[in-house]
């Protein structure tokens, strides 16, 4: 018995050793000070830390684009974080990235209220900083102050995203029938800009299309941290349901609301398709009731599965969602820090001299064919943001580049333009 015990222990130690050696093999020969080094072609080599908020299909695709497409061409090395879930973990990664020789940070943990702390921290380590998120009034000092290391923000054009949902409901909702709506307001109550805009647009569309008047303001409805009925003068059932699947009891609460039988439209402002579609399917069968699902989404298994599934009544299980092209978003972050690192910070500033917020527009997707077409883009060999696009966002490649020109370039990358180039 003892011999077996020792065998197990030796195996455990051996496995750990193999893993550690293997990991060491993945390393870059222990060189920890590569920032600003001269590369093979005489081009400066920079190391950029990518702060991820979650690890999913999108972040994997992003890492692929950064590591395999961008890194060799622009002589840049990338270092990725684990999933950072709070400000403390963000700060920890930034400190570690600085010690590992990073020259800049691209932050995908979009909580605008934290910008000043992170900009200050990066300034301490002489690192350039940009983040995926909007400008928060609480951080005006970062924009108006003299933070030379701050390159500004990049984010989705949230009003445009919200409008996609408003327009879809306007085009498809049959108001001659009295529908009931569950509006998943997500983290709008915590100030999440995307979920705020989508929730506001969905509620606004219901109000306009039925010509009703809510007893509360739309802002009060989506800002509530507790579920609230959107009572109104037309008696249309509207239930605003905040929170996210990670919140204990969230899915059970949604399930209970659906089981009341009052609602047949499930409108979700957060990316929750992977969490709710099974529940929707089960309740459709159990209650023999047709639910229409519309929700924010992103490329990946959850969206593909939802869009390609047929429900109990033979309809498309997911009626409408949204997608974005990761490489376009990543180009925005990359161009901001690269322009600063190469001495072209002016290209990251508004006309008034404040760091800019670059915006991209999301795309609506309403059928599996469209999803399949767009899903086949933005992968190795078919990147939406190719070298021409990236070059047009870099001041070292595009002489005299301004922030306005960069913004214009991004807006030009719409569905039709991408399709014309890639198909």
């Amino acid at each position, binding site marked *: 018995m003892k011999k077996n015990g020792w065998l197990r*222990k030796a195996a*455990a130690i051996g496995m750990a050793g193999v893993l550690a050696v293997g990991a060491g093999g993945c390393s870059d020969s222990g060189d920890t000070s590569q920032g600003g080094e001269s590369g093979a072609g005489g081009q400066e080599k920079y190391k950029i830390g990518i702060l991820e908020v979650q690890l999913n299909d999108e972040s994997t695709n992003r890492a692929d684009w950064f590591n395999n497409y961008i890194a060799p061409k622009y002589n840049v090395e990338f270092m990725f974080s684990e999933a950072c879930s*709070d400000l403390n973990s963000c700060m920890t990664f930034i400190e570690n990235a600085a010690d590992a020789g990073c020259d800049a940070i691209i932050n995908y943990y979009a909580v605008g209220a934290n910008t000043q702390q992170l900009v200050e921290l990066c300034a301490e380590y002489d690192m350039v900083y940009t983040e995926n998120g909007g400008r928060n009034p609480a951080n005006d000092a970062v924009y108006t102050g003299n933070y030379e290391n701050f390159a500004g923000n990049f984010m989705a054009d949230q009003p445009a995203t919200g409008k996609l949902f408003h327009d879809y409901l306007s085009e498809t909702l049959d108001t001659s029938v009295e529908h009931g709506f569950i509006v998943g307001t997500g983290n709008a109550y915590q100030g999440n800009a995307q979920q705020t805009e989508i929730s506001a647009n969905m509620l606004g569309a219901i109000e306009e299309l039925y010509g009703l008047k809510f007893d509360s303001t739309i802002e009060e409805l989506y800002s509530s941290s507790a579920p609230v009925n959107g009572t109104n003068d037309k008696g249309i059932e509207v239930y605003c349901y905040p929170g996210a699947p990670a919140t204990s009891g969230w899915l059970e609460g949604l399930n209970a609301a659906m089981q009341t039988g009052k609602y047949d439209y499930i409108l979700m402002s957060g990316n929750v398709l992977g969490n709710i579609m099974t529940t929707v399917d089960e309740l459709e069968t159990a209650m023999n009731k047709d639910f229409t699902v519309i929700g924010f989404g992103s490329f990946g298994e959850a969206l593909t599965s939802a869009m390609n599934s047929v429900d109990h009544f033979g309809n498309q299980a997911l009626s409408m969602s949204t997608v974005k092209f990761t490489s376009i978003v990543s180009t925005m972050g990359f161009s901001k820090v690269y322009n600063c690192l190469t001495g072209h910070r002016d290209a990251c500033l508004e006309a008034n001299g404040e760091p800019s917020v670059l915006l991209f527009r999301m795309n609506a997707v309403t059928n599996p064919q469209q999803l399949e077409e767009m899903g086949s883009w933005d992968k190795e060999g078919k990147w939406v943001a190719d070298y021409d696009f990236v070059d047009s966002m870099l001041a070292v490649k595009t002489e005299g580049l301004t922030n306005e020109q960069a913004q214009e370039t991004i807006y030009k990358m719409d569905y039709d333009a991408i399709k014309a180039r890639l198909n």
Partner: protein
Amino acid sequence: MSNSSAAAVSERSPKLTLADRVDMIKNNRYFPIVFPLAMLAFLLLLFVALTGGEFMKRSVILGIFNQSFITGTMATAVAFIYSTGNVDFSVGNAMGLACVLGALAYQATGSMAVMVLVTLAGGVLLMMFNCTLCVTCHVKPAMVAIVAMSIYSAICVVLVGAAPIGVEYETSKALEGVFRYGSFLLYFGMCLLLYHGTAIGRKLRFIGGNERCAIQTGINAVKTQYISFLFAGVGVGLAGVYQTIRTANVASTVGTGMGTDVMLATVLGGMSIFGGTKSNCFAGLIGAITVTILNKGLLMIGVSSTMIQGIRGVVFLLLVYLNSERQKTLPSRQQF
């Protein structure tokens, strides 16, 4: 004794196998202290070698302390609770709520001193509440932790609302210097003294080892456990203060998941979360520093973050495996 008789005795003695010798080392009373320290020293030297000395840079060393402070303080605090065999993993949420209360007090008064005092008081009161449920109301500690986690996090969401509560950045950074180091050393020194130099620590370990026996020897288990939660509360409050001054704002999610980090740090530091006679109050700090060194060192030598998660898991399992005590008779609370 002559050489021949010594040889005869040696022949008659049972021969110890290598496994027996290792078991003897593992069962040595100092092993749980020395082994984690040895691992810590080994990792430190390994990364110093692999980074060509970069790992000993001032910024790196300071970074290690900065990143270990909060978990280390919490783990030191909860050692008092774990020692008695109570596993309270709601401490992260308790810390979060204490932070929120302190930040709200700061918002109302604009005084950092008030923020510090309210956060400390919050930590103490919340832990005393947990203690009352466990010790006086006799609710199982695990159940208390589950319920407390939900209650505290719900209160945080309601109190914080949409945007995190900001605390003045410059003052926060100023407190990160002398105040933080001084208060931590004071608290840690006090814990060391109480836990290892007074009857309080002995009573806590005795209760953790065998509560019934401890009571029969005249120890007031209720009073002693209240004392343990009191000291834990001070640590939880102090960790809350460190958290607030590090981030200079408090979000509704603050402290979520911290309970697990504290448990991991404690186990990595060589202490059983089920308490008992081999408990100590510095294991958590050693564990927290070990995890930080591992994360930072691996990143500095260029290992990817996904690989780091795997390596950390393997190292954690390995340490727990080597550090754990497997009774050959009846199972005891000392098992991990």
